[in-house]
């Protein structure tokens, strides 16, 4: 039997180095890719339902629990949506400090992903502990940067997993000037490390796998969008979060119960590469020059550039945090008074893994009547499957099974899928025949 005629069935029962529990099924017959499924077997957690009846003051603490790695994204999106509905402006200080807080999460989450989840693939290692044996300095640098991201989250939230500092109207407390001064020094010292990280990731040999896809990310007139902006796409879309549902829909595949997100009935990309593709001209001059120096140019159609995109965003997040903390002043009151009102609250921000959209229907006592949350990973799901199909054909189906499996895992990890986020409301049903 020739290589083209063989039948291959690859089942990866547990995908490692992703957040949450997922699996991959692949079936090749006569050189044709017959089946390819990214399966998710995390049980549903029904967040939207149990938010109902809870007070707006509890929402940031509850939605944080969707994801231990990106709780700030869920919290900031929720409080901003509710403030808009309630007609509350937390003021420039709180807006700036939320951006700093959010930068902490990008730094932490991206560094965790690069070093502990993704990079081992490109050095023939099974995990970061093995990688640390051959690239000790790079891994230690990555863990230090991750720790600094956590420290920045601690500054405003007292802890980095399910932080407790954010509230509708601002923050519960403001860090002391001495704390801010200490972290500013660390941020300054980390910039050269982040530059070295960009050079390191740019130097990692990755497959050349250019694909056509639509990038979707928030865009802001002046800044690289994180917590504020309109929803944009590489085809020119520019909409407010209120009109998201007119362009983006979730549908169910006939073979499963999974909800997949589509943009105008098509798959699309969210996350660091989509953001860099749309917003690279909003990066500071110094960082753009550094990118030119590495020989990479954006927009990029190669998903394997996600690794370096995360490194670029780490540098930018450090730089932004430093800029915004430069003129830090302690506030008399870190929050403004809030009076709830009935209506529908919409919000979105750029979570580390991409666009996060939320909608809350509230009653006049400030209780949740209904909630809908669309996390980045469910938006990327269809794109991951499309990418796997294209990427496997480009890679060649005649490779040995373990090489095919590794390639698939690398492709999936480019998206840094967070299955804990994606399954807060969905479950992919698997039918085996």
């Amino acid at each position, binding site marked *: 039997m020739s290589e083209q005629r063989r039948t291959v069935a690859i089942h990866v029962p*547990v*995908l*490692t*180095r*992703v*957040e*949450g*529990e997922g699996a991959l099924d692949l079936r090749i017959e006569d050189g044709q890719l017959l089946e390819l499924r990214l399966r998710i*077997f995390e*049980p*549903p*957690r*029904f*967040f*939207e*339902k*149990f938010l109902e*009846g*809870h007070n707006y003051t*509890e929402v940031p*603490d*509850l939605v944080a*629990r969707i*994801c*231990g*790695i990106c*709780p700030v994204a869920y919290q900031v999106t929720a409080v901003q949506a509710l403030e808009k509905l309630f007609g509350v402006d937390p003021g420039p200080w709180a807006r700036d400090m939320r951006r700093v807080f959010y930068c902490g999460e990008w730094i*932490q989450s991206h560094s*965790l992903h690069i070093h*502990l*989840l993704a990079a081992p693939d490109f050095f023939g290692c*099974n*995990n*970061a*502990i093995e990688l*640390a044996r051959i690239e000790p300095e790079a*891994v*230690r640098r990555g*863990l*230090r940067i*991750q*720790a600094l991201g*956590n420290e920045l989250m601690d500054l405003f939230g*007292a*802890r*980095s*997993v*399910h932080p*407790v*500092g954010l509230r509708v109207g601002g*923050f*519960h*407390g403001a860090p002391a000037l001495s704390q801010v001064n200490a972290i500013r020094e660390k941020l300054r010292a980390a910039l050269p490390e982040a530059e070295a990280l960009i050079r390191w990731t740019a130097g990692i040999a990755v497959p050349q796998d250019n694909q056509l896809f639509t990038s979707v990310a928030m865009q802001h007139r002046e800044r690289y969008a994180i917590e504020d902006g309109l929803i944009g796409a590489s085809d020119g879309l520019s909409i407010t979060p209120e009109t998201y549902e007119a362009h983006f829909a979730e549908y169910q595949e006939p073979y*499963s*119960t999974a909800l997949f997100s589509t943009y105008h009935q098509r798959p699309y990309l969210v996350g660091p590469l989509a953001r860099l593709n749309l917003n690279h001209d909003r990066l500071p001059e110094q960082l753009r020059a550094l990118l030119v120096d590495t020989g990479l140019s954006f927009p990029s159609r190669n998903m394997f550039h996600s690794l370096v995109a995360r490194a670029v965003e780490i540098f930018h997040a450090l730089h932004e945090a430093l800029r915004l903390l430069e003129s830090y002043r302690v506030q008399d009151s870190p929050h403004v008074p809030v009076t709830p009102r009935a209506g529908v609250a919409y919000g979105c921000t750029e979570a580390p893994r991409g666009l996060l959209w939320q909608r809350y229907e509230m009653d006049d006592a400030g209780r949740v009547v209904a909630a809908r949350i669309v996390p980045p990973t469910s938006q990327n799901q269809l794109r991951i499957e499309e990418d796997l199909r294209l990427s496997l054909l480009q890679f060649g189906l005649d490779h040995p099974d373990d090489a095919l499996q590794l390639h698939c895992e690398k492709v999936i990890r480019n998206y840094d899928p*967070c299955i*804990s986020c994606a399954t807060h*409301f969905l*479950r992919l*049903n698997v039918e085996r025949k």
Partner: protein
Amino acid sequence: MTWRIANPEAGKPRVAVHKFSSCDGCQLAFLNLGEDLLKLAELVDLVHFAEAGPLEPEAEVDLSFVEGSVSAPEDLVRIQRIRQHSRLLVAIGACATSGGVQALRNNANGAEWKAQIYPHPEAIASLQHATPVSHHVKVDFELWGCPVNSRQVLAVVNALLLGVAPRDNADKVCTECKRRGLTCVMVSRGVACMGPVTRAGCGALCPSLGRDCYGCYGPAENANTDALSAQFSSLGLTAEDIVLRFQSINSQTPVFLAAADKAGMER
């Protein structure tokens, strides 16, 4: 039973980290250790830890950490097998010790919820209740908290490396608050704080920011929820508000469930 996991003749102690229904946040107590993560890897052999890479769910281990609540039919089998393969089993975090935030569904009509979220609810396999690990197998030690922190998990690892029983502080958050010299938010500003009935361990983080503790570490030992409910009531909370205070991250612990029921009856 022995608490010792170190055995010089058998090499490094073998440790597994398992995940059930959760947000992955308690595993971050390991992954957020920074450079200490490499030190930990020198002291123990991380045999199974899917998020970090090592994948050997069926390996015999000296110690398993289990995150998450038992929520799906296949979990029932998996938790039994983990118990069989583990000499010591430590449940970490609110999901594993109380069912966690997703156990709020235990009070509701699960079938109705599924129907409201999914076009085809019949295809969704989830158990009616999200339950703690101790409802299914013997648990040697529990670490409470949503999330647990690195200090807590490292204290367990260190105790077991030395062969002593791990300890955890079951006293109230109030005691940590007093040790930090923080002003009581309830006494000084009338904030409805859960600190007087909540287990210590976080270091009184919420009061340090001037806000209410919301009970994410679960009930403390000898928690006087009646007195706290009466205090909440005198602060102006309605019976419904008091129910919500107890029906949050650790809603299914018997102490908080009873307190919520009692407040709810007064509605």
